[in-house]
């Protein structure tokens, strides 16, 4: 695989993470617990879809030909998506959404801080913008974690259940495979393994402050980067891609 193709694959991973997670957030539209939160969740979803667009546009340019951002979003099937599993899990209850988002955003901030120094100027440019938004996401996430964890008995129980259920999906966020290793060598990709410790430190600090227990589990799931997904992604894509599949080539 050439560096060119490797960067494209890397780009698609980051775009897929953003698109799938953005879609899950958008599922709260008109269903959030109260109006301000409805607006907040949909705004964060917009940030993620925008991030996906930037990565997909770059990947499309690297592909050449007729490939556009829409090709990646609307015409690939489950096995072709390379997002992390944590992104595709159903939105669950409000606590689950908040905890998942917080765990992901905590890494995203650290990640973008590093990616903005990438030798690939386009990725660096995207990261510089994404980092600003990630700062907001983490701040918002932290406030909610404290409110839910250090809240009522019910909010605490739901938050703890979410933390326990999600913990095993966090390992995949840090794994470095052969492709990423090559790009790290080339000064393009981020060494996520090196972010594991700082991530754990900042996340466990918030969990503790929120009176939530840091799970002591040793199970972990992975496969997303290789196209091995949960059932949930299939249903998500069926909804996301329905219009393009039903009317191929459809344009606004």
């Amino acid at each position: 695989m050439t560096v060119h193709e490797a960067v494209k694959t890397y780009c698609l991973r980051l775009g897929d993470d953003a698109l799938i997670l953005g879609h899950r957030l958008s599922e709260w539209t008109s269903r959030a617990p109260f109006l301000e939160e409805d607006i907040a969740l949909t705004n964060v979803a917009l940030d993620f879809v925008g991030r996906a667009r930037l990565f997909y546009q770059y990947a499309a340019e690297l592909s050449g030909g007729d490939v556009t951002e829409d090709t990646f979003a609307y015409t690939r099937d489950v096995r072709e998506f390379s997002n992390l599993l944590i992104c595709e899990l159903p939105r669950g209850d409000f606590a689950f959404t908040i905890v998942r988002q917080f765990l992901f955003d905590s890494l995203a901030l650290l990640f973008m801080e590093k990616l903005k120094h990438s030798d690939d100027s386009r990725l660096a440019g995207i990261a510089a913008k994404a980092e600003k938004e990630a700062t907001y996401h983490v701040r918002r996430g932290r406030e909610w974690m404290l409110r839910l964890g250090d809240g009522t008995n019910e909010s605490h129980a739901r938050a703890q259940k979410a933390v326990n259920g999600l913990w095993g999906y966090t390992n995949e966020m840090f794994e470095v495979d052969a492709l990423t290793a090559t790009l790290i060598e080339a000064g393009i990709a981020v060494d996520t393994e090196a972010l594991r410790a700082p991530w754990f430190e900042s996340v466990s600090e918030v969990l503790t402050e929120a009176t939530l227990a840091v799970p002591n589990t040793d199970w972990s799931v992975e496969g997303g980067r290789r196209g091995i997904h949960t059932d949930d992604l299939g249903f998500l894509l069926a909804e996301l891609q329905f219009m393009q599949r039903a009317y191929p080539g459809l344009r606004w």
Partner: protein
Amino acid sequence: MKDNLIPLLPEEEMQRRQRRAQSEWPELWRLLDHVMDPEIPVISLYELGVLQDVQLENDVVVLTLTPTYIGCPALQIMEEDARKALTDAGYPDVRVVKTLSPAWTTAWLTSAAREKLQRYGVAAPLDGVAAATCPQCGSADVEAVSEFGSTACKALYRCAACLEPFDLLKAI
């Protein structure tokens, strides 16, 4: 003796203003001064910092724009409005270049732009949220209701003095 505080502009913003000041096509810049932010129609593309450069290359107008927030849907509309303004003025060939860096920041807004925003009803404090004042009554007794307001770039605030809500342009 009073402190004479001259607000310093970021380097890239200095350069942008110089590009305009030294441009061979000042009429193009002036034309685009009428293209406003669709959500905040008192602020132009230039004042927002979205319009980075405009050049004329063999009858083709080359516009360089930079997005504010990544997911901002208004950028698309601003681009279309800019094209229309140019076409109507006799420049049908327009090429838009989107640049991500230098990354847009609210630090580029002029104090004139901030005052316009404030008069329009959107707080845009220079020194961050600590200096926010109510656009309606001017009181500094304000509180944040939500990090997200009517658009991605704004937060929702409330004035404890006059009890009116208002949007605040978030500093990034």
